[in-house]
C-alpha cells in the first residue's frame, strides 16, 4: 500500500516484534530440551513438541519426565535444601536479587519467547508478565533479607513441589519460586506442557546467576508428571490451575501432613453501578476479560450492570469490542492474540455453542488459526450455565441488578471466589460492597491489578492460600521446633452407677438452644474409677446439618463490631471464672487427672486473650506501585467446624472457639470425644453470656463418625481437627468437595497450656482479602 493510500485510510499496518533472538536461543539449546535437575540440563529424552499456537509451528521438542526424573529432581532438591536454608536470609537475598537482575537484563528475550510459546500479545508479555515476574524476585529478595529478623520463629518447609499453568508461564513460576527460595525452601517445578520454554530459559538464568545446584529443579511433561510430583516426598504442593485438578491434588495429599496452596478457577463478577464512570468501566472490561484472551483465572468474566444504565452500557461495550484488534501475537498493535492450543479453542467453542442469551461477537477481522473472537453474551440470569461455569476464553457473560444488596447477592451466587471488581464513583457504595463480595481480591474502579506486595488467592472453590505479601510468605514456612506424637485418648469404661441428687440431662447446643440429639441416643460417661457420672448425647449427621444451618444464620456476628465481640468474650470469661470450682472438679472427674483448676484458669485466660485480639488483629495497607491503597483486610472465614482436643475437654474447646468467634466466625464444635460433659456444662456459661444464638454450636459424639460429615459439608468454610483420633486424612479428603480450608493436627500433639500460639489461630480464623482502591480527584 502506498503512503498516499495509508494517508487516506489511516490503517495501523503491521508492527511485528522480531522473533529472531528468541528462536536463536532455542536453536542454541539444540531445539531439544531435557530437564533442569541439580543445576544441569539432562539429555533430551522421549517427549513432545512445543508449538507456537499462532502459527502451529514446532518451536522445540521437550522431554516427558519419567518417575526416575522426578525422583532425581526431588532428591536433588532434598540434598540442596539444608545448605540453602543455612545460607541465611541475606545470603539467599543476594541470589534472588541476581535472578531479578538477570530477568531484567534478558527481559525482551523472555517476553518474545513467552509470546511465541503461549500466543499472548507481545504487549502483555513485555509490559505485564515479565515486569511482574521481575518484581516478584526483587520483592522476595527483600523478604529473604528480612526473614531472620522478622520471622525468627519460622523455618522453611523443605522441598516444595510446584505445578504452574500455561496462561502466565513465567509469571506463575515467579510467584511460586520467589517466596519458596526466599524462605529457604528448594523447589521442583513443573511448567505446563504447552508452555515450558520460559521456565527452561529461567533455568538457564539460574545457571548464570550461580544458584547452588538443586535449589531450583524444573521437570517438563504433562499432567502425569504433575501427579508424580504430587505423590513424591515433598513438604508442600503449590498448584495453580483448574479446580478439577486442584480437587484431585487435595485428595492425593490428604493426610500426608504436607502444606498445600491451591489457586484455582474463577467466575469473577464485574459489578458496575449506575454512578460509575461508564466509559472507564467499559475500558476496564478490556483489561478484565480480553486480557490474555480471557485465559485468566481471575478474569472479570461475569458482568453485572445496574438496570438503569444497562442498555447504554451494553451498546457502548459492543462499540468498544469492535475496536479490538485480534491477530499475530508478536504484533505490537494487537489486543487479542492466539488461544493457547487448538484443544482449548474447541473447548471454548463447545461451551459457547448453543448458549442462551444474546451473543455478540466483536466486529473485527479474525485471522485463520487458533483464534477466538471477543464475545459478549448478554441477557443471562444466574440460572444460565454460562453464568456459573468458567469458560477461560475471551467470552464475557452479563446480567443486571437493581440494588447494591442485589448486586452483592448475584455476585456471590457462585461456587468460586477468586476476584471481583466494583465500579462506582460513590465511595460509600464502593467501600460498602467490596468487603461483602466473596473473593480473595477486590478491585475498586479497576481490574487485574497485581503486585508482589499484595496477597492474591481465593476463597470457596477458587482455592486457598495467598501468594504475595507477608501472608504469601507464611505459606512457605512453618513454626520452628518439633512436636510430640498425640496418643489416642480413650474414654473410661465401667458399670457402677453413682446416685445423683437430681438426674441431669446434658443436651446438644444448637442455635443458642439446648437440643436433644436427632437420633435419640446417648452414651454413658464414666469416670476414671469406672463410676457412671452421666450421659452425653450422640450427635449424628442431621445434628451437624442443624448446627451448620444455625451457624450460617448467625451471619450478623461477622458484622458486629470487634468491640462488641470482645465484650461477649470477656463476659464468657467472667462467667466461666465465677464457676471455676465446678468446672475444675468436673474436669478432674472426667479426666481422672488433677489439671482441672489449671485448665479452667487457662481457658479464662484464653477468652481474655481472644477478646483482646478481637479489635487488634488488624489488616494492613500494602505498598503497591500505584496512587491508591491496597488494603489487606482480615475477614472471618465464615462457618468453621472443629473437632476439639480430646485430652483437654474445656481448654481444647475454648482455645478453638475464642479466637474463631473473636474474628467474627461462627463455629460448630465437636467436643472432646472421651470427655464430653465439660463442653455441655459450658453451654450454660454461653447461655448466660450474651452469645447470640448460632454463633457457637456444640455437639458431642464420635469424632470418627462426625468428622467426615463436617468436612464434606458444602456450607462450611473451614474444618479444624485437634482430635486424638486419626482423622486428618479423612477430613482433608472430604474437604475436597468444596475445597474448604483445613487445619489438622496430623497426629501431632499441641500444648494447650502454651499461650504463644494465638496468632496461629487468628490466622487460621481469617482470610486476607486484598481490596485495591486506586484514587484520584
Amino acid at each position, binding site marked *: *500500500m*502506498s*503512503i*498516499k*493510500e*495509508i*494517508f487516506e*485510510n*489511516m*490503517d*495501523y*499496518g*503491521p*508492527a511485528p516484534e522480531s522473533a529472531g533472538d528468541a528462536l536463536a536461543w532455542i536453536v542454541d539449546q539444540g531445539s531439544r530440551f531435557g530437564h533442569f535437575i541439580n543445576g544441569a540440563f539432562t539429555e533430551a529424552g522421549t517427549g513432545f513438541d512445543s508449538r507456537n499456537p499462532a502459527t502451529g509451528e514446532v518451536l522445540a521438542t521437550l522431554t516427558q519426565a519419567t518417575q526416575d526424573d522426578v525422583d532425581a529432581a526431588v532428591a536433588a532438591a532434598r540434598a540442596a535444601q539444608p545448605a540453602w536454608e543455612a545460607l541465611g536470609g541475606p545470603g539467599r537475598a543476594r541470589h534472588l536479587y541476581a535472578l531479578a537482575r538477570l530477568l531484567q537484563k534478558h527481559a525482551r528475550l523472555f517476553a518474545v519467547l513467552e509470546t511465541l510459546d503461549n500466543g499472548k500479545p507481545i*504487549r502483555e508479555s*513485555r*509490559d505485564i508478565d515479565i515486569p511482574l515476574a521481575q518484581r516478584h524476585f526483587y520483592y522476595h529478595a527483600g523478604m529473604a533479607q528480612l526473614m531472620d529478623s522478622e520471622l525468627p520463629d519460622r523455618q522453611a518447609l523443605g522441598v516444595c513441589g510446584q505445578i504452574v499453568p500455561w496462561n502466565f508461564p513465567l509469571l506463575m513460576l515467579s510467584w511460586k519460586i520467589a517466596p519458596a527460595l526466599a524462605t529457604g525452601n528448594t523447589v521442583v517445578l513443573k511448567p505446563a506442557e504447552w508452555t515450558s520454554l520460559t521456565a527452561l530459559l529461567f533455568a538457564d538464568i539460574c545457571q548464570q546467576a550461580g544458584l547452588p545446584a538443586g535449589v531450583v529443579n524444573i521437570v517438563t511433561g504433562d499432567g502425569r508428571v504433575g501427579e508424580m510430583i504430587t505423590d513424591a516426598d515433598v513438604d508442600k504442593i503449590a498448584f495453580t490451575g483448574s479446580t478439577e485438578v486442584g480437587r484431585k491434588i487435595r485428595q492425593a495429599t490428604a493426610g500426608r501432613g504436607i502444606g498445600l496452596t491451591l489457586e484455582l478457577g474463577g467466575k469473577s463478577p464485574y459489578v458496575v453501578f449506575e*454512578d*460509575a*464512570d*461508564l*466509559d*472507564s*468501566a467499559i*475500558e*476496564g472490561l478490556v*483489561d478484565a476479560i480480553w486480557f490474555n484472551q480471557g485465559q485468566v483465572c481471575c478474569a472479570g468474566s461475569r458482568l453485572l450492570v445496574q438496570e438503569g444504565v444497562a442498555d447504554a452500557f451494553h451498546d457502548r461495550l459492543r462499540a468498544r469490542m469492535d*475496536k479490538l484488534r485480534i491477530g499475530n501475537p508478536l504484533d*505490537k*498493535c494487537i*489486543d487479542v492474540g492466539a488461544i493457547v492450543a487448538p484443544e482449548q479453542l474447541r473447548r471454548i467453542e463447545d461451551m459457547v455453542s448453543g448458549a442462551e442469551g444474546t451473543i455478540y461477537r466483536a466486529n473485527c477481522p479474525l485471522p485463520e488459526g487458533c483464534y477466538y473472537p471477543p464475545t459478549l453474551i448478554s441477557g443471562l440470569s444466574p440460572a444460565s450455565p454460562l453464568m456459573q461455569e468458567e469458560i477461560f476464553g475471551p467470552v464475557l457473560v452479563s446480567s443486571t441488578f437493581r440494588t447494591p444488596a442485589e448486586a452483592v447477592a448475584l455476585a456471590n451466587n457462585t461456587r468460586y471466589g477468586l476476584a471481583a471488581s466494583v465500579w462506582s*464513583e460513590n465511595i460509600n457504595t464502593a467501600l460498602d460492597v467490596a468487603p461483602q463480595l466473596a473473593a480473595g481480591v477486590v478491585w475498586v*474502579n*479497576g481490574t487485574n491489578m497485581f503486585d508482589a506486595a499484595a496477597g492474591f488467592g481465593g476463597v470457596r472453590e477458587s482455592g486457598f492460600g495467598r501468594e504475595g505479601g507477608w501472608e504469601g510468605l507464611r505459606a512457605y514456612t512453618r513454626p520452628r521446633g518439633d512436636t510430640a506424637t498425640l496418643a489416642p485418648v480413650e474414654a473410661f469404661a465401667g458399670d457402677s452407677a453413682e446416685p445423683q441428687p437430681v438426674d441431669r440431662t446434658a443436651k446438644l447446643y444448637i442455635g443458642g438452644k439446648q437440643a436433644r440429639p436427632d437420633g435419640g441416643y446417648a452414651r454413658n460417661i464414666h469416670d476414671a474409677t469406672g463410676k457412671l457420672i452421666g450421659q452425653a448425647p450422640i450427635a449424628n449427621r442431621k445434628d451437624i446439618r442443624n448446627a451448620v444451618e444455625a451457624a450460617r444464620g448467625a451471619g450478623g456476628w461477622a458484622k458486629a463490631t470487634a468491640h462488641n465481640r470482645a465484650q461477649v468474650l470477656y463476659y464468657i470469661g467472667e462467667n466461666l471464672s465465677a464457676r471455676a470450682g465446678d468446672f475444675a472438679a468436673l474436669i478432674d472427674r472426667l479426666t481422672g487427672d488433677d489439671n482441672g483448676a489449671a485448665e479452667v484458669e487457662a481457658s479464662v485466660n484464653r477468652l481474655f486473650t481472644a477478646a483482646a485480639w478481637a479489635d487488634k488483629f488488624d489488616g494492613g495497607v500494602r505498598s503497591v506501585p*500505584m*496512587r*491508591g491503597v491496597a488494603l489487606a483486610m482480615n475477614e472471618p472465614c465464615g462457618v468453621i467446624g472443629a473437632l476439639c482436643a480430646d485430652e483437654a475437654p474445656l481448654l481444647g474447646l475454648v482455645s478453638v472457639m475464642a479466637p474463631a468467634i473473636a474474628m467474627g466466625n461462627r463455629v460448630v464444635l465437636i467436643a472432646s470425644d472421651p470427655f464430653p460433659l465439660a463442653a455441655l456444662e459450658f453451654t450454660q456459661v454461653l447461655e448466660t453470656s450474651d452469645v447470640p444464638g448460632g454463633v457457637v454450636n456444640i455437639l458431642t459424639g464420635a469424632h470418627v463418625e462426625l468428622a467426615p460429615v463436617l468436612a464434606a459439608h458444602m456450607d462450611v468454610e473451614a474444618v479444624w481437627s485437634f482430635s486424638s483420633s486419626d482423622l486428618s486424612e479423612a477430613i482433608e479428603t472430604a474437604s475436597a468437595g468444596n475445597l474448604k480450608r483445613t487445619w489438622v493436627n496430623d497426629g501431632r500433639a499441641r500444648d494447650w497450656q502454651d499461650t504463644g500460639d494465638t496468632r496461629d489461630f487468628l490466622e487460621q480464623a481469617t482470610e486476607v482479602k486484598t481490596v485495591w482502591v*486506586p*484514587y*484520584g*480527584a
Partner: protein
Amino acid sequence: MTPVTVKGDKTAQLPQLQDARNPGMMLDMDWVRAARANRSAIERRAATLPGRRSVKKEYQAAWLARAISCIDLTTLAGDDTPGRVARLCAKARHPVRADLLEALGLEGLTVGAVCVYHDMIGPALGALQGSGIPVAAVSTGFPAGLSPFRLRVAEIEESVQAGAQEIDIVISRRKVLTGDWQGLYDEMRTFRAACGEAHVKAILATGELGTLQNVARASLVCMMAGADFIKTSTGKESVNATLPVSLVMMRAIRAYHAATGYRVGYKPAGGISKAKDALTYLAMVKEELGDRWLRPDLFRFGASSLLGDIERQLEHHVTGAYSASWRHAAG
C-alpha cells in the same frame, strides 16, 4: 500538482463543509451532572495506549504526514511581526521539503491552519492567499479571558471581519470552578453567535479546571452551546494537553455525537512536540472517536515545534539515516 487537502475552492478543513455544523442544543444539566471521570482509570488507559498501538515504517510516515495535515501552525508571541508571520505561513504552505514529499508521494501537503493573534490576521491572510489554508485567530481576551465581556464578543466580531475563518475562544474558567454551568453555556452561545460563519474552537484551559470531571462537564456544556471544536489549552497554562485530558474530551465528543448525531472536533494544544506523541494522539483519536475524526476538519494539533520533529522523522524514513534540524526549512 494539486494540494491533497484541498477540494474545490474552499478549504476542506472547515467542518461545515463536510458535515452539518453542530447547532448546539438546550443546556441539559442532568447530562452535565451525570458526567463522571475516574482519574485513575483514565490515566491507566492513557498510559497503556502507547504500548497497545504502534505504527511502523511506511505506515508511520503516512501517519506523520496526516499529523502535519492536522497541525494548526501557531505563533502567539508578543513579538510577532508581519515578517515573522509571513515566514510561518510559508512553512504552512510547504511544511516538508519538496524532495521528501515527492519521495513520499504526498506532494502538496500543507498544515491544517495557521493560528495567530488578531493583529496578525491580515498578514497571515496575505501570505496564505491561494493556498486554501485557513487562518485561525485566538480571541476573547486570550489567554486569560478576563477582559470585559462585550470587548471579548467584539474581538470575535472584528477578527471574523478581518477574515479569520476559525476563532479559538477561551472560556471563563471561573464559571467552571464555581459550577456556573448556565453562565458558561450562555457565554459560549454568545461567542458562537458572534462567530457567524467562522467556526469556533472552545479552549477549556484544562490545566486550570482542577479535575477531569470538570473537563468532562465543561466539554459537554461547550458542545451544547454550539462549539465546533473543543480544545485543551491556550499553551500558556502550566499544564497543557495531556493524554488523560484528551481521553476525557474525546469521550465527551463521542457521547455528544451518539446523543445528537453531530460531530465536534478536537484540538489538543501545547506540549506536543515529538512525532511519537503525535502518533499516540492520532491513535487515541482513531480508537476513541474513529477514523472519521482523523481529518483536519475534526482534528487539529495546536503546536509550533512538533512539525520540526516530524520533518526529521520523515527524512529518516526516506533516507534511512537520522536527520538534523538544520536540513529543514525554518518556520
